């Protein structure tokens, strides 16, 4: 089963927003349920999945800890995201999946309810170097969404997990 570890990448995608529902910032102490899709490996098939996470705001409104679990029909993993506002809309984050057994450090900016970040350095997976991107969007509602994707110089972007979160 070692083929699974080190190859599971999670992507979060903002899915189509509900026109009626209000956008909700993840910067809350709250429980969230997410639905969407994810892939177990960069070259694996997409599968439907769900996440259940908790968010806790610290440092006033300047930092956010997101912890929980995501599951598809064939696999599950714990997930951790630590976000911190660094001033002038700058954001730093640490993203970790237990199955992956590694942490990715991101930096990015926050603008109009959207946080867009990229990995500080290329990520090595199965002998290939991947650029990674993490986006959190609460501008369109309902709730917020997460998208996590990787890409190589030669290949297309691969969305590994796409989750739309709503308050539980």
């Amino acid at each position: 089963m070692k083929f699974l570890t080190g190859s599971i990448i999670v992507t979060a995608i903002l899915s189509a927003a509900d026109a009626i529902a209000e956008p909700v910032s993840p910067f809350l102490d709250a429980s969230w349920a997410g639905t969407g899709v994810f892939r177990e490996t960069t070259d694996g098939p997409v599968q439907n999945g769900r996440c259940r996470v908790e968010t806790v705001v610290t440092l006033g409104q300047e930092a956010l800890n997101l912890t929980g679990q995501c599951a598809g029909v064939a696999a599950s993993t714990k997930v951790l995201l630590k976000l911190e506002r660094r001033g002038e809309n700058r954001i730093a984050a640490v993203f970790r999946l237990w199955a992956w057994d590694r942490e990715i450090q991101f930096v990015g900016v926050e603008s109009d309810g959207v946080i867009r970040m990229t990995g500080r350095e290329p990520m090595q997976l199965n002998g290939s170097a991947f650029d990674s991107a993490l986006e959190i969007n609460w501008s369109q509602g309902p709730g917020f969404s997460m998208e996590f994707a990787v890409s190589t110089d030669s290949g297309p972007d691969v969305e590994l997990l796409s989750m739309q979160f709503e308050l539980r």
Partner: protein
Amino acid sequence: MVNEPATFTRLLICWTAYFALCLLAVLGLSRITFNDGIAKSFQSDTPQYHQYEQFLARFDTGENEIFVLFEGNDFANPADLAMVADFLVEVQFEDGTGAVVSPFSLSDPNGDGGRVIPAQLPTQPVMAARFDAAQKRIPGLGRMMSPDRKTLLVALIPSDDTSTPQERRALYQEIEALAAKSVQGTQIAVTLTGYGVLLDSVAKKLTDDFLLLNIFGIAAGTLISVLALRSVTLALIVAASSITSLLWVLGAMGFAGIEINVVTVTMPALVLVLSYANALHLGFELRHQRQTGAPTYLRTAIRRMGPASFLSALTTAIAFASLMFSSSSLVRQLGLAGSFSTILLTAGIYTVLPLFMATAERMSNNRTASAFGKHSFPNWLTLGPVIAFSVRNHRAVTTLTILGLIAGLGIYTTAQPRFTLFENSAPDDPSRMALQRIERDLVPVGAVAFTHPTLPADSLQAAQAALARLVGERNLLSGKTFQAVPDTAQGVQTNGNRANFFASESGDLALLLISHAYVGALETREFLDDLHTRITDEPLLSNLSPPTGMLAVSSLISRDMLNDFSFCFIIAVLCSSIVIALWLKSPVLAMLAMVPNVLPIAIVGAWLALSGNGLQFTSGVAMTIAFGLAIDDTVHVLNRMRLNGARGMRYTRQQIVDSVQQVAPALVISTLVLAVGISGTLSAALPSIVYFGQLSIAVYVLALIADIVVFPACLMSLSTLVGRSPESETP
């Protein structure tokens, strides 16, 4: 006026001590734990068990896998598949679920989206065609879905943090509830199964059976006491004494850390009925002595009955203690607890019953002396004609007994050890039936484990290939299986706890599993013997370890453990003979006393062999303990003869007939207490307890018949042999 005065102060001291002991016992009782204990049955100082321990330390065995069996009309139906998919996602949010394996886990390089089942479910005809094609290409699919698509299997692997029985039970309940909710409103049936689930169902039934046995024992014992003593007051005193003894024994078990499991569950009930039997013997004597008008009737009754009661307790304790020669730690624990409990209960009866009696006397101030009833038995209970017949025809009866004994023991020795892990599951248990359907329609759930050094790699590959040739590719599960067909079968997960399922923690050993449809130990041993022969003939498998895993180890060890019971029984017979020989100062009489007690075991043992039931844990324990209980009656016969002035080995016919007649009512009643008191077992949920009850009751009844019919004849024949002519002295 028959009151033996007891001062208020003395009574107060005694009652204070009594309540203090009861309080202590309640504290101990609260510490009692329930566990199936089946896995512990094989804990032993044997090479196979030590190897199994090492195996468990190095590998995550997967023996706790939970199987969720979905049965419907056609799992190509997208609605049905969507329901299973929904269940798979939800179940992974349950605390304790480590990983899931299902047809959704299967990769199919030729399929859309790289999966046998794509994320976007197609229509039923398309999915049906996909499944049919995949059944031919993807070996793993046949393990999880039947070719007719009516059966779909999901395997759940508990996480490492689900280690205690309570945590596992909570997980099973959560999964069961979720599965039931998932299929609500559909035509799909769902059943939870797996060895862990089966063992948990045994543990759950243990609690119910424990309560049933003890409540039934109390009710039956009290009712028989009322009928036998024809005095509610005295019967209540007997009942209170017996219940106190039970409480003390359970308290002691709690403090000693002895759990209630499939082996020990009947012990408290046995203690209870034995307490009733002892209390009745003492109750009869107390009332008899009270009617004589002696002011010290309590002391007199204790003096007259005490030696025999303690001797019979000793012989019962010896029978229990003989189980300490078993190689099973669980059986040894029963032996220790049983022998200690037997002595404790007798001491309890001989302290509590007189205390209750003295208090009742003081409280009644003799006004209600009649409340203790009159000491008399119905005449027919003396069984006079039967005893007279036996003595009159002693030669024929003795000859038949000896022949029966030889034949019975001879046949008994041919009884095969037969063990199955399903011994405690009813054949119609839903989980057990589901397991059988999985093995019939999909794949054997059981497996025999082997290990092989991972290096050099080509040696391991050669061994895997050779083993696959021997047992068939489909029946061999190894790391190679999963590399060749990613995402299939057991072990797939993403949260790390089973990443090394087929490799030892240190990485130096590889695990090779051979599927095996488990029926019982005998069949598994035959399978292993056949496998051993083929492996020995294959040089590429020279580095393969001996077989291990729960199925292999339990099958191999159980044979020796079951054979141990014969040794335990011989020890019980020898030690009991020695004790009686010392008491009566007559080895010959002691050997003779064994005849009516070994005979029932020989008869039941012969039936075990002839019926094909063979030797099981239940029968081994039941027969050894039943021997210890049956011998009590013989001790009471011998004690009565001693009280009647019979000495040596020369008895008159009248001495024999009188003594046996005098004690016969008590023997009938105590056998009734034992048999009826333990008959709650016949309504138990666990089949092994029902079987235990059936065998025990058979031995008790046969032992009574032997004591009334066989023993007088044997005594008469012995008297004749040693030179006296008893007939000439017949009045």
